[in-house]
């Protein structure tokens, strides 16, 4: 931002043919949502690394890599989902930057894959209220070797706070493509996908902080 202020003096001048340059490189960062959430509520522990690489003026190849352990408490079940995930895709910057600014308002697409386990901690049988007095809590089993793949549409913003340091916010809508389900249970939560709603859809919110490792510069297109 500071560099822009000094640059903006150029607007009024006669240098109509000023060529602004864009920074190209690898941007790596971390998701802030999980650490903050873990601080408030320890039913969720996770870490997500984010990265993107600029391939043209507006197009970025992007990926996220994460680990998540999440406990869901429903009326009749309590289960813990534990696993890793990867998402890969592209971001398209729809924002026309002034001068040499490097901010983004983007739309993106991701393919996501997760490998995980579900542990059914406890469950109660949904039975006639007649037996409410003697309803017993039963301990379930662990379901290993599960997976899911999904597609994601991402809308987000990234702003350059300081030189090469970016703060990002994004919202994603997701839809499961296929999933390996446990026997006599269901993948109600998938790492990287979050809660799986009835029609196999889901959504997510990310706050990221990332740093651009500039590799080279090219004239603004």
């Amino acid at each position, binding site marked *: 931002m500071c560099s822009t202020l000094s640059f903006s003096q150029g607007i009024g001048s006669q240098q109509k043919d000023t060529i602004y340059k864009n920074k190209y490189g690898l941007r790596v960062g971390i998701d802030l949502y999980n650490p903050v959430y873990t601080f408030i509520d320890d039913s969720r522990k996770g870490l997500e690394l984010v990265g993107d690489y600029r391939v043209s003026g507006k197009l970025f190849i992007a990926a996220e890599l994460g680990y998540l352990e999440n406990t869901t408490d429903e009326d009749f079940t309590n289960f813990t989902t534990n696993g890793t995930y990867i998402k890969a895709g592209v971001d398209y910057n729809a924002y*026309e930057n002034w001068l040499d600014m490097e901010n983004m*308002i983007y739309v993106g697409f991701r393919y996501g894959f997760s490998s995980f386990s579900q542990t059914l901690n406890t*469950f109660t049988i*949904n*039975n006639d209220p007649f037996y409410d007095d003697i309803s017993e809590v039963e301990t379930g089993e662990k379901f290993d070797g599960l997976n899911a793949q999904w597609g994601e549409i991402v809308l987000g913003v990234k702003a350059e706070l300081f030189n090469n340091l970016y703060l990002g916010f994004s919202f994603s809508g997701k839809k499961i493509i296929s999933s390996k389900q446990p026997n006599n249970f269901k993948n109600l939560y998938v790492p990287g996908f979050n809660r799986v709603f009835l029609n196999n859809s889901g959504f997510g919110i990310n706050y990221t902080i990332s740093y651009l490792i500039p590799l080279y510069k090219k004239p603004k297109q």
Partner: protein
Amino acid sequence: MKKIITYTILILFILIAIGGCERDEICIDPITPHLIIRFYDTEDLETFKPVNNLLVKIMDKEFEVVTTDTLLIPLNVYDSRTTIVLTKNSKDSTQLIQDTLTVNYEVENVFVGRSCGYKSIFTNINYQNTKNWIVSKEVVDLQIENEDNAHLKIFH
């Protein structure tokens, strides 16, 4: 250009709003089925015959007295047996007559969904009963998986 920014921000807010308002799923699927008993006339095997002032007692808990030809009995999923005491003419101490129906079964837990959790179904059912006012019975289903039809016919 400003339009794009405005629209993007607008879409973001709408999506967040939709996400936040996502309704909780409510359990509407069938849960653990009851044992459905229907009472028939022993002289006309096709005709329903209500039991007069029937008192149902399970595990020392009494239900409301009813005159009915259909009973929905909650089977105990925490045991492999439910004993049901059926008292006819329960409102008249000189006329009342009692029978005991014992249901033996195996319990199997089946996952239904997020909001409903697990339900139980009953297999390998067998019935034993005393015959004070019950004349005979006919087992319709050896397992209870749903409440679509009666599982036991009792003739009296």
